[in-house]
C-alpha cells in the first residue's frame, strides 16, 4: 500500500533563509550583504559629494524653486500660461505638450505603419518595393536628422502666408505653421456629446446581446443597420433639436498674416511628422512580422471550413497576429514618447525643452529638475509596461486554458 508523501517538516527559519539567499546557502547571503554594503557605500559617497559640491556652488537644494516666477514665455500652451506663472506651471505646460505630440504621433504612426506593412505584403510589385524602400530609408537615418530635415528643409522652405498652400480654402500651410479652422463650442454641444455617447453605448449593447444569442442558440441577428441608424440618427436629432454643437472660425488672410483660426506651430508640425513617419517604419516591421508569424496552415484551415477571405482575416489571422504584435507595438509607442524629447533640437516647448532646458539653465537646480523629468518619462514607461504585463498574463492564461 502506497502511503501519501510525507509533508516536509515546517521550519520557518530555514525557509526564510532559503528565500533570502535564493537557494544558494549562507554564501549567497554573505555575498548579498557585501553587495548591499558596496551599494550603500557608493550611494552615500554620491550623496555626500553632491551635498558638498552644491554647498560649494551656493545652490539651494529642494523643491522650493517650483513656486518661483518663471518669467519666460512659451510659444505653445494648452493651459493658460503667462510669464508671471510659476515653474510648476511651466512643468505642467511642458508635460501637456509632450503628451499632445505623443498622442498625435501615435495615431499617425499606427495608421502609416499598418498601411506600409500591408503594402510590403501586397502582391503588387511596385507597392511592395515602395514600402520596402520607405522602411529601409527611414529606419537607417537618425531621428534627429529627420527632425531637422522636416523643420529646416521642408517647413522653412514653404511659401510665406500670402502665398500659402491652401487645403480646400479651409486650412493653410505656410512657413509660419499650419492654420486650421478654430472650433468653438455652441450651446448644443452638451446634448450632442450625450447623443453620441448614448448611440455608442446602445450599439455596443446590441452587439453584445447579438453575440450572446449567437453563442447560446446559434442564431445570427442582423444588428448593424440598427446600430448605423442610431449612430447617425441620434446626433442628427440632437442638432435638429438643440442646434449645432460647434461653429468654425475660418482663417482669413488679412494683411500679411491670417486672422481667425488656430495656428499650429511649425515646430509641432515638424515634430509630429518626424515622429510619426519614423516610428511608422518600425511599426510596419512589427506588424509585418506578426502577420507572417501566423502559420500558413491557419489560413488554409480557415478556407477549408468555408470561411470567406475577410472572415479568415478577421476571425483567424488577426487575433493570432495581434497577440504577437501588441507587446512590441507598445514598445514602439513608448519609444515615440521618449523620442519626443528630441523636440529640444527644434524648440518645440515639450517637457524636456522648457523644463530641463530653459528652467534648468535659469535656476541651476540640476538634480531636482533632471530627477523630475526622468521620473515623468519613467512613470509613463513603467505604467505602460505594467499594463502590458497584465495583458501578457491574461493572454498566457487564455492560451493555457
Amino acid at each position, binding site marked *: 500500500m502506497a502511503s501519501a508523501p510525507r509533508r516536509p517538516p515546517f521550519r520557518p527559519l530555514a525557509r526564510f533563509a532559503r528565500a533570502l539567499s535564493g537557494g544558494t546557502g549562507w554564501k549567497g547571503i554573505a555575498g548579498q550583504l557585501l553587495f548591499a554594503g558596496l551599494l550603500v557605500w557608493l550611494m552615500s559617497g554620491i550623496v555626500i559629494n553632491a551635498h558638498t559640491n552644491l554647498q560649494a556652488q551656493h545652490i539651494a537644494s529642494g523643491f522650493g524653486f517650483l513656486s518661483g516666477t518663471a518669467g519666460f514665455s512659451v510659444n505653445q500652451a494648452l493651459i493658460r500660461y503667462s510669464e508671471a506663472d510659476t515653474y510648476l506651471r511651466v512643468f505642467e505646460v511642458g508635460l501637456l505638450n509632450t503628451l499632445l505630440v505623443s498622442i498625435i504621433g501615435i495615431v499617425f504612426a499606427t495608421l502609416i505603419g499598418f498601411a506600409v506593412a500591408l503594402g510590403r505584403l501586397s502582391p503588387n510589385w511596385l507597392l511592395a518595393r515602395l514600402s520596402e524602400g520607405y522602411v529601409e530609408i527611414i529606419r537607417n537615418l537618425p531621428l534627429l536628422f529627420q527632425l531637422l530635415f522636416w523643420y529646416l528643409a521642408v517647413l522653412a522652405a514653404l511659401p510665406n502666408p500670402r502665398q500659402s498652400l491652401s487645403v480646400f480654402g479651409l486650412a493653410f500651410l505656410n512657413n509660419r505653421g499650419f492654420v486650421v479652422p478654430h472650433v468653438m463650442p455652441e450651446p448644443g454641444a452638451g446634448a450632442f456629446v450625450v447623443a453620441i455617447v448614448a448611440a455608442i453605448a446602445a450599439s455596443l449593447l446590441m452587439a453584445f446581446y447579438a453575440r450572446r444569442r449567437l453563442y447560446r442558440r446559434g442564431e445570427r441577428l442582423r444588428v448593424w443597420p440598427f446600430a448605423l441608424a442610431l449612430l447617425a440618427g441620434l446626433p442628427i436629432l440632437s442638432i435638429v433639436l438643440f442646434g449645432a454643437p460647434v461653429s468654425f472660425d475660418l482663417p482669413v488672410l488679412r494683411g500679411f498674416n491670417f486672422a481667425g483660426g488656430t495656428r499650429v506651430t511649425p515646430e509641432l508640425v515638424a515634430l509630429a511628422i518626424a515622429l510619426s513617419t519614423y516610428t511608422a517604419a518600425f511599426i510596419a516591421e512589427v506588424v509585418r512580422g506578426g502577420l507572417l508569424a501566423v502559420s500558413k496552415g491557419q489560413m488554409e484551415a480557415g478556407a477549408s471550413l468555408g470561411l470567406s477571405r475577410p472572415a479568415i482575416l478577421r476571425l483567424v489571422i488577426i487575433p493570432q497576429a495581434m497577440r504577437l504584435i501588441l507587446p512590441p507595438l507598445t514598445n514602439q509607442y513608448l519609444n515615440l514618447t521618449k523620442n519626443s524629447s528630441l523636440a529640444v533640437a527644434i524648440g518645440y516647448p515639450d517637457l524636456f525643452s522648457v523644463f530641463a532646458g530653459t528652467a534648468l539653465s535659469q535656476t541651476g537646480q540640476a538634480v531636482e529638475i*533632471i530627477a523630475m523629468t526622468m521620473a515623468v518619462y519613467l512613470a509613463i514607461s513603467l505604467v505602460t509596461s505594467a499594463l502590458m504585463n497584465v495583458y501578457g498574463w491574461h493572454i498566457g492564461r487564455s492560451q493555457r486554458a
Partner: protein
Amino acid sequence: MSGNDTTFVRETLAPARKAPVVTTGFVGFLRTRLFNSPLNITLTFASAVLIWFALEPTIRFMLIDAVWTGTDRTACLADQAGHPVGACWPFIQAKFTQLIYGFYPEDQRWRANLTFALAALLLAPLLVPKIPGKTLNAGLFFIAFPFLAFFLLRGGGLDGFVFYWLAELFGSAWKPSLTRFWLDFSLTATFAMASMILLGGGWKNGRRAGLSTALTFAGIAVVIVALHLDQGGLPVVDTRQWGGLLVTLVVSITGIAASMPVGIALALGRTSRIPLLRIFSVAFIEFWRGVPLITVLFFATYMLPLFLPGDFTIDALVRVLVGIALFAGAYNAEVIRG
C-alpha cells in the same frame, strides 16, 4: 439497353482554345504583379505618383538645380547662377574636413587617420572566420587598441608605469624622469613575467605564459618608444577640438564595446537566483530603458560632476561615453537575456 452505346464519345475535335495569357517574361511580370486587378492597377498608379513626388524634387535639388563649382558663397546665390539654386556643393567641399575631423588641428590629422586605419586593419581579420589567430587578434583589438587610440587621438605621455601609480595612490610619488620611467617599466615587466611563470605552474609549465608576457611588454615598449610616451608623447589635442565623423566613430565604437560587458553583467544579474542581485538588475535596467537618451546625456553632463569629489574633474566626452555605455548596456542586457 445496349452495352455499346457510345453517344458520350466526342465525334469532332474540340475547338482550339486561345493560348494562355503570358505569365513569364517582362509582359507577364507586368500582368501578374502590377496590373492584374482594378485594385492593383490603382495601387500601381498611386505608388508611381508617390515615387514621382518624392524623387522629382530630390533629383532637382541635388543635381539639376545644384551649383557644382565656385570659390565663395556668392557662387550659390540665385542671380549669380541664373536659376533657382538647390544644393551648394562647393560649400560641402570647403567644409568637408570639418565635417570629418571637427576642429582637430590640421597638422595632427594624420593621427586620426592612423587610428581608424589601425582599427579597420585589426577589425577586418576578426570578421572573417577563416583567418587564424583569433585570440591574439581579439586581444590586440579589444585591449591594446583602446590604449593606443587614446594616446594617438588625445596625445600626452606617461609619467611612470605601474609602480609610479601605486606610489601615487599612497601619496608618495617620486619626481618623474626618463631613467626612473624605464626602471619602473622593467621592474613591472619582470614582476609580471615572474608571476605569470609562477601562476602557470613553475618554469616547466609556465614558460610559455612567461614568454608571451615578455613579448607583450616588448610590444608595449615599442609603442612607448614610437609615440615618445616616455618624453611627453604627442601634443595634446583637447576633446573639445574633436568633432564631426571622428566623434561619431569614437562614441559609437566605445559605446558598443563598453556596453557589452555592462549588458552581460546585467543580464546575468537579472537571471540570477540571488534576490538582491536580481532586484538591483531589474531596477537598473528598467530605469535606463524608461528614460530618453537625451535626459541620460543631460544627467551625465549636469549631475555626474556633482556626484564626484570636488577636486575630480571629468572630461565632457568621457561623461557622454559613461552615459551612453550605461544606457546601451541596459538595452543590451534585455537582448542578451532573451
